């Protein structure tokens, strides 16, 4: 049987979905994480520890492992492990994105440079060091703008500023976020270098959409397009509702796919799952970012394909079979709501889950936060307390179900002591 090496950080939401998908297939699975599983010694073929913060070292560890247990495919399930995945594939001579391309996709400034060089519509942008004279530089920035960390994901640290004063405050806040991030886990030199600067770019107005796709030899196949019905105008950019299939007219969807194809080409991505975020101003699609991984959180559960295949099955099959044809997405409207963190503090109780589940159209309510957990909203936080899933006859009904279900939930949060 072929062996799939799943790179699963201990902090990911994606474990269950990938294990469930692999469990339905005739494959041997090895799960690699950055910390040892407590039972690793009982099953060394299936439980592996890799130095995720050091891609070159992790690649050597994977080569050593593969000498005993040959590996046929490597799948990075989250942003944190895309570079490690590319390094391992390169070392094992497996089909994958180049390490250079994956590193570029994880660096927002480099991404912008590559988009600009390829002639893609790109907001005005510049890289600034945290140690630069921020009040002076603030005078030269066009407002409204968005300050972004170069290397973080999931909207963490992304803040809109409408004037010089807000800009200075945003940069100070982002600096604290990045410094905390540096302390929270080991970083390689590339990452530490990225965290010494930040990106400032023009705020692009208009609705935001997300595209899920798979790449094979550089050719993009769109799996799903999500509308985000809630306006994302800042100051922070919290994800909430995703709806699919998109309400956008066919020609606009084709423009979005074309823009994404051009973006992955500009970066140099060629294989595997792709998750892209775009804005749609009146002038046409603007690529915000494109990442070599599948949709985050537990959102993939909102996608339904023919033959009951899941997104994770598609990703695993495609990694093993160069000629695999991914199935077509179901046309029945569905959606997911990433439940926003209501306020900062310690979660003491969650009320109304049964009522939220009982809302017509709701498929599932998944609460991922646990009582006693410290909840941190954006821009400092990076975790959702839970996810709501709905399917219905129309997109309006899906959206209404998600909002009604969310309204039933009450998170009792005790403000955290400073």
């Amino acid at each position, binding site marked *: 049987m072929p062996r799939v090496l799943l790179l699963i950080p201990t902090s990911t939401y994606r474990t269950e979905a990938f294990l469930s998908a692999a469990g339905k297939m005739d494959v041997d699975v090895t799960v690699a994480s950055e910390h040892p599983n407590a039972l690793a010694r009982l099953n060394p073929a299936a439980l592996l520890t890799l130095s995720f913060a050091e891609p070159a070292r992790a690649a050597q560890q994977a080569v050593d492992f593969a000498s005993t247990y040959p590996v046929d495919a490597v799948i990075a399930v989250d942003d944190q492990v895309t570079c490690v995945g590319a390094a391992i594939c390169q070392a094992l001579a497996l089909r994958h994105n180049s390490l250079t391309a994956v590193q570029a996709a994880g660096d927002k400034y480099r991404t912008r440079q590559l988009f600009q060089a390829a002639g893609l519509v790109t907001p005005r942008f510049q890289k600034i060091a945290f140690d630069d004279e921020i009040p002076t530089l603030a005078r030269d920035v066009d407002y409204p703008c968005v300050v972004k960390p170069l290397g973080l994901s999931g909207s963490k640290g992304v803040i809109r500023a409408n004037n010089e004063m807000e800009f200075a405050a945003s940069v100070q806040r982002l600096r604290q976020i990045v410094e905390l991030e540096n302390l929270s886990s080991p970083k390689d030199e590339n990452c530490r270098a990225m965290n010494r600067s930040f990106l400032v770019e023009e705020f692009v107005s208009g609705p935001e959409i997300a595209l899920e796709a798979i790449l094979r030899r550089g050719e993009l196949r769109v799996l799903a397009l999500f509308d985000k019905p809630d306006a994302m105008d800042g100051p922070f950019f919290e994800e909430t509702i995703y709806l699919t299939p998109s309400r956008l007219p066919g020609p606009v969807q084709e423009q979005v796919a074309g823009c994404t194809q051009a973006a992955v080409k500009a970066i140099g991505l060629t294989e595997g799952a792709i998750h892209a975020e775009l804005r749609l101003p009146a002038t046409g699609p603007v690529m915000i970012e494109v990442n070599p991984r599948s949709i985050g959180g537990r959102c993939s559960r909102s996608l339904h394909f023919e*033959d009951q295949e899941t997104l994770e099955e598609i990703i695993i099959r495609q990694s093993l079979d160069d000629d695999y044809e991914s199935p077509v997405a179901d046309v029945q409207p569905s959606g997911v709501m990433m439940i926003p963190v209501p306020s900062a503090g310690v979660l003491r109780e969650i009320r109304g889950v049964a009522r939220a589940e009982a809302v017509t159209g709701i498929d599932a309510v998944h609460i991922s936060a646990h009582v006693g*957990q410290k909840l941190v909203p954006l821009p400092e936080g990076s975790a959702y307390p839970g996810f709501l899933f709905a399917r219905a006859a129309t997109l309006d009904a899906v959206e209404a179900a998600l909002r009604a279900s969310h309204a039933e939930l009450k998170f009792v949060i005790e403000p955290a002591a400073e």
Partner: protein
Amino acid sequence: MSQAEVSITGEPVSAAVCRFTVDRPVYPEKSFAFMSKEAAAGSPLAERLFAVDGVSRVVVSHDQITVNKTAQVEWPVIGKLIGAAIREHLASGDAAVSDEAWGNVPSSDEIKEQVQQVLDSEVNPSIADHGGVVRLINVEENTVFIQMGGGCQGCGQADVTLKFGIENSIRAAIPGVGAILDVTDHAAGRNPYYTPSKK
């Protein structure tokens, strides 16, 4: 029994797996997993199913038969052959699982004792480092019910620990164990060792 009277519904679980539900019990109130063609030797239903080219795994449970196939064959082709094999088996009156195969399965009391031994000697000493504990709740026939507590309850890696650590150890020590079911209320975990935090 006329083969034509037997109604069988095929429901795809995934591209590689299809669940066939028969309108009558095939293996009443029991389940048995055949992980290979070799394991099916002597069990008439499984032998018939493995005779279909492309069948790689068979799980028989009451009125359901879950079949895995290899990538080289298509369901529309082998689905009909599987249906015919099930009908042929029912018409034969043969047992679904041979007495010998079932006889090799330890009693539920024996399974209980051996699972507890695995948990005490291998699993719990290791997961204690993470503040975790696994308890044996019950064994019904050859189905094992366990519960995870402490750092394992609600842990973001509990699925990995269960599937590749606990299940693997139990199956290696006790051949013939059926499903291993986690009955933990993970949502109620108060102190999980790993908490999902990455958007």
